[in-house]
């Protein structure tokens, strides 16, 4: 059964230095509050896994949490570069960042293999690209039935996966809807998991085919209202595209980024404090 505990406690117990950590959520339901808490608790030397690093990993990389990034698309969607990711790759700041780089289809196959406890995922991918030349985690096999050459990528088995969802019930069953990405696979692939939710209710009222993660496959559930900001939670709040645009300016220089992290994350106790701090600064547009 999932433990229903505060996020601070969940991160303290579940996320350790050196862990392989996946914070998933494809544009939607990105667990920003959990990423901030990992920064606050100053976890180091993490292998961060995520299809689209997004602003959340830009913050964690810039704050010095990461030694390695496993990913398939690292930009600020519709805006441009992730400046902290670029600084780490191009200049090794604040520390060098090793890359295990893929295409989306390959990352999806890796998570599905992880959830299935298979050693690798197989797909008709990576052909005609230079990725295999630079990444030993992309190899090719011959289909034993047809002889077709197919790509093979190793399963992802995170030490801990963290996602955000709309609802949990009081026993810790989790419901999510909308763009659900690879969250289910990422949780099922992981040794431990944390789910932050918008609300905890008596009854999920979920139709039988809804995406529900039963309580007994989830490690911890933490109530964090608004915890996906500036991404969105369908049915609760919209994506704050204005913040994504403003991140370009905040993150461009090391000094402005560090000041932002110091004030709004290290200088606050929790996600409510973070949101209040942004509001005071006029950044919660």
């Amino acid at each position, binding site marked *: 059964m999932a433990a229903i505990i505060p996020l601070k406690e969940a991160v303290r117990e579940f996320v350790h230095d050196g862990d392989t950590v996946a914070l998933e959520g494809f544009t939607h339901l990105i667990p920003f509050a959990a990423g901030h808490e990992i920064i606050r608790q100053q976890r180091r030397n993490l292998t961060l896994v995520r299809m689209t690093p997004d602003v959340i990993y830009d913050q964690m990389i810039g704050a010095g949490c990461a030694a390695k990034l496993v990913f398939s698309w*690292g930009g600020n969607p519709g805006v441009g570069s992730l400046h902290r990711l670029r600084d780490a790759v191009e200049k090794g700041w604040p520390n060098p960042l090793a890359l295990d780089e893929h295409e*989306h289809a390959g990352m*999806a196959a890796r998570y599905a293999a992880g959830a299935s406890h298979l050693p690798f995922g197989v797909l008709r991918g990576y052909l005609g690209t*230079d990725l295999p030349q630079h990444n030993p985690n992309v190899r090719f096999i011959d289909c034993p039935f047809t002889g077709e050459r197919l790509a093979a990528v190793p399963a992802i088995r995170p030490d801990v996966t963290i996602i955000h969802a709309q609802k949990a019930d009081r026993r810790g069953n989790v419901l999510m809807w909308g763009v659900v990405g690879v969250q289910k696979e990422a949780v099922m692939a992981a040794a431990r998991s944390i789910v932050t939710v918008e609300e905890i209710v008596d009854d999920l009222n979920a139709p039988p085919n809804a995406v529900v993660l039963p309580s007994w496959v989830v490690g911890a559930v933490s109530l964090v209202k608004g915890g996906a900001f500036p991404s969105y939670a369908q049915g609760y709040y919209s994506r704050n*595209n204005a913040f994504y645009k403003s991140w370009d300016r905040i993150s461009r220089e090391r000094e402005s980024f560090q000041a932002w992290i110091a004030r709004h994350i290290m200088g606050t106790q929790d996600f409510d404090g973070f949101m209040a701090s942004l509001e005071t600064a006029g950044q919660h547009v």
Partner: protein
Amino acid sequence: MSDVNRSEQAYTADEMMTVAAARMVRNGVACFVGIGLPSAAANLARLTHAPDTVLIYESGTIGTKPAVLPLSIGDGELSETADTVVSMVEIFSYWLEGGRIGLGFLGAAQIDRFANINSTVIGDYDSPSVRLPGAGGAPAIAASCGEVLITLRQNKRAFVEKLDFVTSGGHLEGGDSRERLRLPGKGPTAVITDLGILTPDPVTKELTLTSVHPGVSVESVVSATGWPLKVAAQVQTTNPPTENELAVLRDLQARTARAHSGQA
């Protein structure tokens, strides 16, 4: 830059590019859409001549009908207006690799003469001068869609003799190299830029200038290309945007700008 005298024209080079790209989307096709320029063109097509086009974004949103252009490939607008929303594993395996998608629509940072695309690094992979976002869904789109359209602005920084990194395969080394690698789709069938339209030679697959936009000279397209550009014997002139195309595009972009200045 084109040699168009903008003061005499009622539209910009970017608008011409988006309109020309939109026209290539056949009504009813299932179209896998990249973010940015492709998204604007695909939605313009849906709002003009191709209302039955099924737009699919890699967030798993199938049959989406956004009223404003999404900033990301997974904006709430896409999922709220979709026929169905599927998981990441499903969109790439059942739909894309499964051969269900007729048309892929991509942008690019760099392109070569065989319409291979780089969106990964400028410079050496291990010590890049510019780290770009990377592959995302593009390699699978380029490999598996029935055909692929590519749209980007044309200049020597983007149209290069040799890519620093091949992120997504177009026609590879040209000729029959896609078939030899057993890539399922036909690959790129047109590259639409702010200057004109390039299409692959039927045999060599080398990109060939087949149409220039109004007011653009063949020479200016050649000089905006980082390799000796092949030019068709008969170069067409693209029809300028119609009043309706321009009105619908501008309306869409105005709605989008309003939406993204606050919460979207």
